[in-house]
């Protein structure tokens, strides 16, 4: 049984890293905790080091292997508190601050498009959480999901510029900073669950 393969080139290393990244992401989105993810990653690496095989050759596609392990899941108990609210706070805050800086003389207009893009953001994250097993079958699917959400969030304020209200720039700036601060505080409350390599 071989343990090292000097002929493994950089492209196969990147293939392995890419496979491991996808696998870790898929386990994370299934709600597997960091310690178990680290254990599963180390198992794959150890087996590939011993056999000289690439992960795809030995384990198949990351999504299929992640599903076949049936690892216990510990979904965050409150996705709304842990994910949606912190990020929404940061996005709204950044919008207000940016609006105040860019429109200091005229005031910050809250448009139909801005409100719609916030709704789209919440909807995309909520749908992702509710159906992550179906949506996130690969890293590409996750990127496509967030890419579509991002494009919509950027496009809506441009195509729906009708103002609902105008806020004084100072008030917008203060509100923005408060939202950013609340968002940052909420982010800090998210329990850390790092991926730990059991081999130390």
């Amino acid at each position: 049984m071989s343990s090292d393969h000097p002929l493994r080139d950089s492209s196969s290393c990147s293939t392995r890293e890419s496979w491991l990244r996808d696998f870790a992401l898929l386990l994370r989105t299934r709600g597997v905790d960091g310690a178990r993810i680290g254990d599963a990653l180390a198992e794959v690496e150890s087996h590939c080091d011993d056999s000289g095989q690439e992960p795809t050759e030995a384990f198949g596609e990351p999504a299929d292997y992640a599903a076949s392990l049936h690892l216990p899941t510990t979904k965050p108990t409150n996705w709304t508190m842990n994910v949606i609210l912190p990020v929404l706070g940061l996005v709204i805050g950044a919008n207000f601050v940016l609006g105040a800086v860019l429109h200091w003389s005229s005031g910050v207009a809250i448009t139909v498009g801005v409100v719609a893009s916030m709704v789209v953001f919440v909807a995309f994250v909520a749908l992702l959480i509710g159906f992550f097993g179906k949506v996130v079958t690969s890293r590409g699917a996750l990127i496509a999901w967030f890419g579509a959400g991002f494009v919509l969030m950027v496009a809506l304020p441009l195509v729906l510029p009708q103002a609902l209200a105008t806020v004084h720039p100072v008030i917008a700036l203060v509100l923005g900073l408060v939202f950013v601060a609340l968002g940052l505080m909420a982010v800090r409350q998210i329990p850390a669950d790092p991926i730990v390599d059991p081999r130390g």
Partner: protein
Amino acid sequence: MTLQEWPSDWMRGVLELAVMRVLADGPSYGYAIAGRLRDAGLGEPKGGTLYPLLTRLEASGDVVPEWRAGDGGPGRKYFAITPAGRERFAHLSEQWRGFTTVTTFITTPSKEKHHV
């Protein structure tokens, strides 16, 4: 001899028993278990088949894992059979012997049976 030489349905049925048989000899790790099965003529199971099985055995309490540092190589996850696992293995292997006796009898042509 490779795993594909045996019908996959048969392999699915017997792989757990075969892995427990290897572990009954002492703690071992995934790639070494696969090598033992290959050398015994059963074929070498892919990692994608073997590790989910080991994970199931771990979850059911039939084996316990332990990461050990390798000799200058990567750390390896060793699996050791537990007393409960050993008991289950003894029961399953006895059943398997009975099963193969029956299936051998059923699948043997009548002519040959008279000579046995």
